[in-house]
């Protein structure tokens, strides 16, 4: 066995994994009921969790990593607005977890139902997975009760804010809408996942309507007083879309799918042919049931160096669920947190000092079929806290930024899952 095959062999061999490989079946929760070596359990295989799982294995292949993710495939939220305008297929941003398996991550397509911090166990129904350290990356959950009528209409009123079947269905509804129809997009109050996302979506829907249904219009009802990200750049981009009717400080509080109507806080009623209602958000459900959220009952406070929960020891929280860092809820930030947390967790498990690492954020938005804009934020650690070094915006929109956006997407998808 030469050096490289030996590395490959060791990289892919973990106790349970090799046994299961021989048995020729997918791993089950019960296979991990007991723990022989050191184990990190990761809840959630999105931008944060997938990255963390991979990087723990890269940092120390002697640590067993079990990833709990109910979905069989990863679908990227970044770039998914391009599905609405028909520029991309959902398949072009859908990936398997095979890359993580090749790094020796044990991927279980299950939902974590409870965390027992004192026993250091994650419950999956009646079964339990012991851990040495737990990384929780549950993304966001929607606050259905914040909009009257929404809870009962979840199947008809689309959010398309978790990329997947809803994205495809919203694109279908947009295509099926008669010319002259009204598309209503509603934006929740900050904080929510991906601050510029709704404004990029506005561009993509407006672009589609302009080129395919010129008599139609797009009404944007924003709970925030103004565009909350890349404001001037989006305003400039929207000059090309007179079909956009943007209304700031128009928080939607009620939806009536039967009447095809939403009501704002001010009492205005707005009729729609197609509705995309992005609900208010909080940390993913497991963060709430496991008492990881703070006084606001929405988001999780963490240590800025290790991402350990402010509420429970040996549990780390990363990604959109966190609060208190001056970072946006973006995929790029979740990816950065995943790496930093992975290094912190491996260092702690090896009794080594935790290196000082800060996240970065690179965020592109497509403003047409071929042009993009971007914002970049970098950070440092100062006094134990994440602080911003600089924010920089592109001076305008261009095809060159769009090329960089494609390069970024291909790179970061591979960084998480490859």
């Amino acid at each position, binding site marked *: 066995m030469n050096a490289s095959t*030996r590395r490959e062999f*060791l990289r892919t061999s973990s106790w349970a994994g*090799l046994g299961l490989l021989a048995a020729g079946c997918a791993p089950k929760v019960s296979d991990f009921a007991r723990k022989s070596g050191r184990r990190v359990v990761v809840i959630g295989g999105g931008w944060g969790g997938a990255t963390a799982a991979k990087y723990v294995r890269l940092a120390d292949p002697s640590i067993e990593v079990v990833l709990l993710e109910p979905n069989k495939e990863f679908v990227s939220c970044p770039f998914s607005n391009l599905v609405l305008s028909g520029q991309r297929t959902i398949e072009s941003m859908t990936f398997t977890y095979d890359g993580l398996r090749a790094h020796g991550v044990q991927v279980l397509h299950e939902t974590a139902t409870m965390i027992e911090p004192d026993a250091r166990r994650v419950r999956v129904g009646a079964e339990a997975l012991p851990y040495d350290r737990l990384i929780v990356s549950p993304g966001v959950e929607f606050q259905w009760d914040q909009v009257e009528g929404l809870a009962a209409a979840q199947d008809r009123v689309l959010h398309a804010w978790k990329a997947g079947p809803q994205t495809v269905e919203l694109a279908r509804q947009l295509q099926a809408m008669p010319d002259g129809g009204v598309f209503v997009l509603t934006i929740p109050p900050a904080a929510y996942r991906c601050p510029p996302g709704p404004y990029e979506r506005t561009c993509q829907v407006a672009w589609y309507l302009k080129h395919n249904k010129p008599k139609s219009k797009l009404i944007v009802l924003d709970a925030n007083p103004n565009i909350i990200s890349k404001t001037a750049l989006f305003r400039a981009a929207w000059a090309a879309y007179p079909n956009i009717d943007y209304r700031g400080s128009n928080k939607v509080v009620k939806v009536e799918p039967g009447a095809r109507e939403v009501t704002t806080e001010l009492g205005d009623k707005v009729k729609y042919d197609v509705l995309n209602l992005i609900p208010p958000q909080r940390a993913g459900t497991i963060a709430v049931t496991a008492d990881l959220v703070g006084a606001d009952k929405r988001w999780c406070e963490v240590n800025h160096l290790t991402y350990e929960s402010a509420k429970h020891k040996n549990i780390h929280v990363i990604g959109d669920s966190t609060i208190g860092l001056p970072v946006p809820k973006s995929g790029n930030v979740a990816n950065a947190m995943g790496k930093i947390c992975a*290094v912190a967790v491996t260092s702690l498990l090896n009794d080594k000092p935790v290196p000082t690492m800060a996240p970065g954020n690179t965020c592109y938005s497509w403003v047409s079929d071929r042009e993009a804009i971007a914002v970049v934020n*970098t950070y440092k650690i100062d006094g134990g806290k994440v602080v911003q070094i600089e924010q*920089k915006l592109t001076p305008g929109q261009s095809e060159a930024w769009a090329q960089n956006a*494609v390069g970024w997407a291909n*790179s970061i998808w*591979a960084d998480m899952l490859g």
Partner: protein
Amino acid sequence: MRVSTSGWLVVLVTLAMLIFGAGTVLAGPLDMPGAPQAMVCSACHGFAGQSRSSTIPILAGMAPWYFKKAIQDYAAGKRTSPEMEPYAKMVMQSGIDDIAAYFAAQERAPSPVKVDPAAVERGRAAAAQCTVCHGASGKGDASKGVPDITGQSPGYLRNQILLFKLDRRSPGDDQLKAVKALMRTIPDGQISDLASYWSSIR
């Protein structure tokens, strides 16, 4: 005592790890100084600086002097990039020497971005002008401040030739006067061909 199939495999793997030296894996790829700080770069530049994207350069195997000058020029706005300026400032604050050494120590694999074979052939025919400085191999000469351009991402090479030609990369930099004078003689139609050729060289 009853031992399951997977139990026997555990025993076998344990033996294999003892025989083949499990201790070697404990020094992971992230243990080098600079590796944790360089991790933020991998979102765009690929793991260990091995970019797979056309317009994003490969940092693996990059000479430390070249990496450091690039970071300093981006941070100072001499190389204008809304993406790189904030990250360059971050690198300068988080340990530029260690990060430069980390990327220099990574083995460079050529760009996986596919280029048009016809463009490569056209570029080959025009590449002699580049070899005056970058050498017949294209590997450059660190002592003269000339970088290795082989296997680099094609879109990145194309963009840099254009930026040199338009004097929009580090304007007024004396070291770059000669290269910019040469770039001004390259017809626009030839830029992609040259980039494709050098990207294809192994």
